[in-house]
């Protein structure tokens, strides 16, 4: 479901307060509080996630009031479906391997080297990560597609090959690896390696025996997340895949929206769900392994200016990669948006101001989509903050039992379920009293908030868990009631994390495409929906307008991210 980022959950294991913990009465009270906090998120998920998904799967697999599980076998033995499954899997694997190969040197450079412009590089690398899939698709279309940059320059076109998809996936997930692996790498104590050297290990042996094992779980977690994102890829493949390449998610969309074949879509939804549940389970396992006590140090102490030709060449290589892989597509996108038939100018942007220059594509000027997107994303962010904040608060309380761990997993599920399914499910379930939201604008923010919640939880949880319980106790002894202690201790300490969570939720909501494409009303399109609609039309004007609108969307996302980078001076969360 879009580029949701639930990376490293490197929880600072809360130091035990006293020895043991609460018992008896204290436990009962804690559980009551926890259940109270969990009630709202659980209700939200039941109503706006489980219900629509179950309803639509039911509709696909039920006929005459009977379950037709035989359909699963029938659908899964169709050659075209097997092709989709095969392609989905191998392109995800290829994307993951490619991303690791290209991004690991970047992770090393950002972790261990000190050089001017490092902060800027870190920010630039992260921008793609919050960019809507539609923008990424459009940018690579502008670079590699018909009439694109490379086509004009050398007559090279990659949009009919799988390379366009793979490169776009690398572009997207570069930051996942750099942030997850590099974040840990920069905090590994170099003295560990030095200790190995003193004990007689060569430079390479020391790295292999000391650093690599410490890093391996982070690499595994990053790889799994990249695999997850690319396995469920929708917007990128929708735009760059053409008729030849289709992932599960794209196929679900095609079966649902174009062929109206609900049974097939339902089966594919279940398949995707199962696959993603498997990936998430493995991810959770690696995360738990990663929580084994590593001695972490302040990243400021571990980086040095590059020394010698080798290290400088490595730095240069990484900078070149970032330039070609990240800056070039975005630059070309901007260039194309300005490249009208009458020379460079803002013609395409001006055309966005009126509805009638697009024939029947739009009921309203495409520029209206900016206002819609911002409004929806703002509301979605608020919902995600409330729901995610309550969930995080519930999960923070110590001595989490199995119930709570189950709740934790539940929050991750929107990642696994096809966004297209959720969107379509909204349409068929939330259309009758008492919950008739079909005509309500709130439907879009609700769907977008589902994507934002896992985010908010993952950003806030490590920070909340890192708050030493004894700080709260200190406040209590000094006369603060539990609520007051939360306000005086927890809130100020997580304020930064809340802002970061809000920013990411905002960016993700802004770019959400799979669900929104179903439920956004024709007279109120969001930016990604408008871009996709423009790309679906032929003609230079539509193409140019798509580029222009994508550029605007990119700028909005980039600006919100750069604001975040300023806030994020500490290491709250891990993105």
């Amino acid at each position, binding site marked *: 479901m879009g580029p949701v980022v639930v990376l490293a959950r490197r929880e600072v294991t809360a130091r035990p307060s006293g020895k043991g913990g609460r018992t*008896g009465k204290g436990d009962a009270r804690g559980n009551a509080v926890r259940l109270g906090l969990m009630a709202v998120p659980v209700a939200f998920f039941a109503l706006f996630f489980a219900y629509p998904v179950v309803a639509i799967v039911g509709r696909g697999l039920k006929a005459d009031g009977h379950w037709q599980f035989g359909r699963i076998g029938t659908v899964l033995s169709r050659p075209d479906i097997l092709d989709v499954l095969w392609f989905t899997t191998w392109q995800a694997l290829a994307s993951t391997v490619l991303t690791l190969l290209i991004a690991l040197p970047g992770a090393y450079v950002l972790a261990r080297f000190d050089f001017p412009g490092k902060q800027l590089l870190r920010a630039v690398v992260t921008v793609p990560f919050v960019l809507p899939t539609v923008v990424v698709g459009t940018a690579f279309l502008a670079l590699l597609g018909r009439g694109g940059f490379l086509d004009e320059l050398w007559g090279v076109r990659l949009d009919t090959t799988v390379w366009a998809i793979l490169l776009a996936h690398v572009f997207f997930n570069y930051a996942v690896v750099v942030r997850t692996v590099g974040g840990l790498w920069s905090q590994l104590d170099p003295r560990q390696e030095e200790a190995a050297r003193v004990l007689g290990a060569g430079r390479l042996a020391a790295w292999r025996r000391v650093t690599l094992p410490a890093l391996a779980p982070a690499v595994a977690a990053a790889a799994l997340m990249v695999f997850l994102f690319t396995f469920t890829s929708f917007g990128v493949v929708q735009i760059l895949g053409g008729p030849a390449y289709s992932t599960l998610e794209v196929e679900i969309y095609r079966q649902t929206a174009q062929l109206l074949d609900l049974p097939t879509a339902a089966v594919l939804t279940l398949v995707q769900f199962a696959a993603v549940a498997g990936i998430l389970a493995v991810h959770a396992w690696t995360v738990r392994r990663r929580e084994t006590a590593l001695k972490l140090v302040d990243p400021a102490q571990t980086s040095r200016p590059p020394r010698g030709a080798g290290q400088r060449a490595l730095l240069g290589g990484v900078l070149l990669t970032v330039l070609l892989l990240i800056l070039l597509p975005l630059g070309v996108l901007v260039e194309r948006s300005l490249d009208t038939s009458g020379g460079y100018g803002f013609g395409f942007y001006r055309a966005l101001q009126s509805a009638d220059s697009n024939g029947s594509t739009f009921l309203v000027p495409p520029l209206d989509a900016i206002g819609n997107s911002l409004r929806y994303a703002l509301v979605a962010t608020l919902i995600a903050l409330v729901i995610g904040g309550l969930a995080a608060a519930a999960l923070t309380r110590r001595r989490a039992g199995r119930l709570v761990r189950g709740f934790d997993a539940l929050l991750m599920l929107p990642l696994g379920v096809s966004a297209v399914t959720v969107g379509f499910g909204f349409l068929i379930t939330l259309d009758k009293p008492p919950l008739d939201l079909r005509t309500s604008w709130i439907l879009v923010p609700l769907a977008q908030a589902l994507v934002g919640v896992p985010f908010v939880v993952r950003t806030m949880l490590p920070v909340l868990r890192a708050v030493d319980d004894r700080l709260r106790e*200190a406040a209590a002894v000094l*006369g*603060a009631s539990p609520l007051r202690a939360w306000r005086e201790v927890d809130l*100020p*300490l997580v304020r930064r994390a809340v802002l970061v969570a809000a920013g990411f939720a905002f960016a993700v909501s802004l770019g959400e495409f799979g669900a929104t494409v179903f439920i956004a009303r024709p007279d109120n399109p969001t930016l990604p929906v408008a871009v996709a609609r423009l790309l679906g039309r032929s003609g230079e004007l539509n193409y140019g307008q798509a580029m222009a609108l994508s550029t605007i969307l990119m700028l909005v996302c980039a600006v919100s991210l750069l604001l975040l980078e300023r806030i994020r001076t500490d290491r709250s969360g891990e993105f």
Partner: protein
Amino acid sequence: MLAVESATVRFGRRTALDAVDLEVADHEIVCVLGPSGSGKSTLLRAVAGLQPLDGGRVFLDGVDQASLPVHRRGLGLMFQDHQLFPHRDVGANVAFGLRMHGVPRAERDRRAGELLDMVGLPGAGRRAVAALSGGEQQRVALARALAPRPKLLMLDEPLGQLDRSLRERLVVELRTLFGRLGTTVLAVTHDQGEAFALADRVVVMRDGRIAQQGTPLEVWQQPASAFVARFLGFDNLVDATVTGSAADTVWGKVPVPEDSSQGECELLVRPGGVRIGGPKEGLRCTVGVRTFRGHHVTVALHPGDGPSLQAECGLRDTPEEGDVVGVTFDPAETVVLPPAG
């Protein structure tokens, strides 16, 4: 002031606090001393209300605290690692408790300044907590705990993380300060030196029970059991049978004080009471490792039979390692303890 009646706390199958009775009088400084895992921290947390009791009661000024949540008990607690609020400056940390009690701003500022003067950090109000040294943090934590004028001030390993010389200086400062303010104090530590320097009364805990209580002098002179003796650092312990004013041990006959209880016992000989003489007198021992302690030297002595002995020697009359010497015992430095087990 404080009365704890058969307080019991269990963590699963383990009993951390086993029917503990304890009283602290007004203006008294009581130090709970024990190894880690003896339940001393749990006792503090139970009094503060941070740890629910599985049995027993806690009274403050005669009022049962069972129904009172932590923040209404009006206590002060200084945490082991201070737990200063990292997002507030020194002044705001000190004023926190006053703010919780609704004290007006001007009064808060005045009192915070006063307390910082008192703990020796005048004008530090605007400093960031992270910029403080360990000793300074400790002082701020103390000022913060004292600011709301708690009925009872509790200290959890108050000097645990500081280096030795600072610890020795601060313990004197604390005692002087508490004496001047008339603060009632319940402190917890595993360091006997700290406890003896600070306390009017020492309570030694073992496995969730009180093993002994008394003034520092009483506990030092007459440990109640072999456990307490060992915990205080005495190693010369041996099974013995007392008859009259002599005890029969593997080290031979050891003289004991006149009015000692008779029969089976555990015998403690303080290192100062182990006299080293020529190889012909008393118990024949080989001299082992010698440890320089500053004012004296501790010498390990290995008799042919039975546990080895620690002896205190003057700097000049220390025997050489490997020498064979004779050992006699000073009855004034031997203590008869109840039999082991």
